[in-house]
């Protein structure tokens, strides 16, 4: 099965991916965000759609992303998310953290 080669997301990385996806400045709706993550990761990362929306709402409550109703490419009403200024700062912090984390894990794995 194809699905066996996909990885479930690590706990807490979904937020980072959502923020990164929105960095381009283009407003996206939830489904597009999950598709985008999947595409860019070349189908390796599978977004658990059930946890996507709670994550989006949480980020919105934290003020890192902003939601607005707009018209989707198919002419239907959809909720579009875009990054806020504080979201951009948060993305920087989290990207750095992620870099430090993976570097550290990499080093441990090499040493062992």
């Amino acid at each position, binding site marked *: 099965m194809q699905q066996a080669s996909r990885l479930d997301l690590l706990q807490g990385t979904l937020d980072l991916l959502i923020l990164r996806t929105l960095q381009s400045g283009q407003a996206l709706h*939830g489904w597009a965000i999950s598709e985008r993550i999947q595409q860019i990761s070349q189908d390796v990362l599978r977004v658990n759609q059930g946890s996507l*929306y709670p994550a989006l709402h949480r980020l919105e409550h934290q003020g890192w992303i902003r939601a607005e109703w707009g018209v989707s490419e198919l002419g239907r009403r959809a*909720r579009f998310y875009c990054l806020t200024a504080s979201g951009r700062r948060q993305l920087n912090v989290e990207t750095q953290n992620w870099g430090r984390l993976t570097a550290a894990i990499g080093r441990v794995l090499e040493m062992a």
Partner: protein
Amino acid sequence: MNWNELLLRIRALILRKRVEQELDEELQFHLEMEARKNAAAGVREGEAALLARIRFGGFQQVKEECRAIRGTQLIETVLQDIRYALKSFRRSPTFMLTVVGTIALGLGLNTALFTIFNAYVLRPLSVRDPYSLYSFTWIDRAGEGHAFSWREFESFRKDKPAFTETVAVQFLYAHVNGHPLMGELVTGNYFQVLGGSVALGRTLLPTDCSAPGREAVIVLSYRAWQDKFGGDPNVVGKKLWLHGYPLEVVGVAKQGFNGVGDVPREYWAPITMASQLEDGPDLFGPDHPNAMSWILGRLKPGSSVSQAKAALTGWSQQMTADLADSEKATGVILQSRATAISVTPEAVAFFSPIAAAFGLVLLLACANVANMMLARAMARQREIGIRLSLGAGRRRLIRQLLTESILLAIPAGLAGFVISQATVQLSLRLMFATMPSDFAEFITTLPMPADARVFVFMLAASLVSAVLFGLAPAIQATRNNVMLAARGEFTTDVRPARLRNMLVVGQITASVLLLICSGVLIRGADRMRNFAIGFRTHGVIIMGIGEKLRTSVIARLRSEPMVEMVAAAGSTPLNGMLPSVSVSTAAGETVPSAWYNHVSPEYFSLLEIPILRGRNFTGDEARSRAPLAIISEATARRLWPNADAVGQEIRIQHDPHTNWGEQLPQHAAVRVIGVARDIVTCSIPWGKDPSLLYFPITPASARSSLLIRVKGNVEPTCRRLDAELAVMAPGAVEEIHPLDQYFAGGIYPFRAASWVGSALGGLALVLTLSGIYGVLSYLVTQRSKEIGIRIALGATTRGVTRLVLQQSMRLATMGIGLGAMLSLGVSRLLGSHLVFMNTFDLLAYGGGVLLVASACLAAAYFPSRRAARINPIETLRYD
């Protein structure tokens, strides 16, 4: 929480429906997009949507998770509970009104009591910075407080051991224009220290106290100006005769300024006028009279009470170092004067039994409502059981039931507030209406506003009672076994019966307790009223007069045709005060504090006190103040248990604590010439004087009050004499009352207490009655199936009635027994303080028990009749 989040939350709260809709729309959109993608990948139409849903996971769970993020769930469920409760109230308005009414009554009474307590004990006085105000005195070995002399006060003011500002205060009662005036002689800085200003004229100033005998001025309180001088706008500049001395009114204090203390002060005059006003030794002369009843001051900023106490103790010991051991200071009393009554152990001891009695009524009301709620919760058990088996959390259900209680408590609190205000006003009015008229003139009350503290109390009390009457039923009702509920059995749980029975027993106990105690009080007050005090009060006027015009007043009285007889007494009877000395016989018998009085020979015949053995004083003996004494029977028994007292000698030793206003015995040894029958001189509640010595004086002797026996009706004569003497000798009459009024005034507090007690007891009885009725009615309904079967099996009407009655009587017996036992304890306590309270008053106990027992029977009767009328066929068909 940042602003963004707050805004989102508020939006979620206000636009709840819209936010929900949006969430649904967003998720639906996602599913659609996913389905479309699946379809594009070649999945069949129906399967594409299904696959999307599967990939999405639990749709409702996701929604629930998103809702949780909004952080408004708590508020939303509370709102939901409130809506639900309101809906159920609308279905049963009678239930709701009964609950609200019952709790409102209990809350109202307690809030009324708290309003009074607040006015006296909690509310700061309307003076500048009340919390730094303290009064100070030192105490000696015997624990007696000290009244300061002017010299002592001056060194205190100079040394400043603990206070930054210091005021000397002496309470002085006066009789002005036919009205009593309670005021104070104070140092000139009084108004500055307390931050008192005036509505008219000026305050007292330090210059008013610059020298002895200066200035003859007086400042009236706003209330005295309004009530006793008719709010005369030209009062400033007028002369008032105080104790026969004219003082010029220089100002009226601003409204609300009542000085420091529990009795609102009505005037202030310079303390430098003390000698003029009191006919006493010169405050500034060589006698150094102890005149300052207390020293008031402001604690040094930053100094703690214990530091101040240490400093004051050091100072006091230094001041008394040269005195005799019995007069050396051993400690100090430093008392906060922020409120009218300081929170002392005595104040707490006075208020706590009253608060307990009132609190008991509130508890009864709560028990009643708890019972009603319980019955209601049981009736709703089917609904609660279904909700439990459908997965509702027990916690959630309890919260919902508690929300109902709180929703009931809020209107009850508001209604209670209205009741409390009405109660306070009504009881003040009733108090003044039922009080002896002359007595009422002396009573001034503090304002009793419903301030923030009263509101907080009411709110807290309503919430506490909501939890009291709501929590237990809620816990009980949700204890339902889900398994049983699922099978449709909702009424097999028998445990609530225990709680209900406990509540009913508690109610019966409390009402028995309240009724018996008020019975004991009523009987005590009654016994007091009918008690032979040993002399005749009727037709006698008591008059206090100043010394300057004494001879002319006596001459005027003797020439008055309505006056039959004039006598004099150092202490007037029933005044609550008698000085004491230590007396001993040659044989060594000693009475360490024997009361004494100075009386003129006419005293005995005027009050109709028989001299049982020996003889009365002669006129000559009285004029020369011969070393003779007449003693009371009780004193004779104590000093000479086996011999005749007449002709014996008594040795007398002064008590150093005697107020300088009292006459001291003139001789170190006196001979007993007569034995008089025992009477009550001091105070009725204390009974006949345990010991009393009479020494001779004449009406002309200084510091004695007059007793006047008049012909005919005493009240108009009393008023006429007062008016005539005010013209003839202004300010000479310091006090004038019919003796009957003293008597009535002395027992009034006990009558009032017994009325309050009976009112509480009656209310408790009504609550208990309705409580028992409610519980039994409910039990009958609950047991109707069982009773129906019994009737079907041949039980008689009488048998069924007995079944129900028996159940209630079991509870009644338990409650009555407990209540009677508790009453024994309480009335013992009453009896230990008051002579007239009979701990084992059979009538009070019998009456209380009988009343409650018959009330229980009556309350049980109707439900039992209903039980007997149960139609077995109908009830058996019911399920």
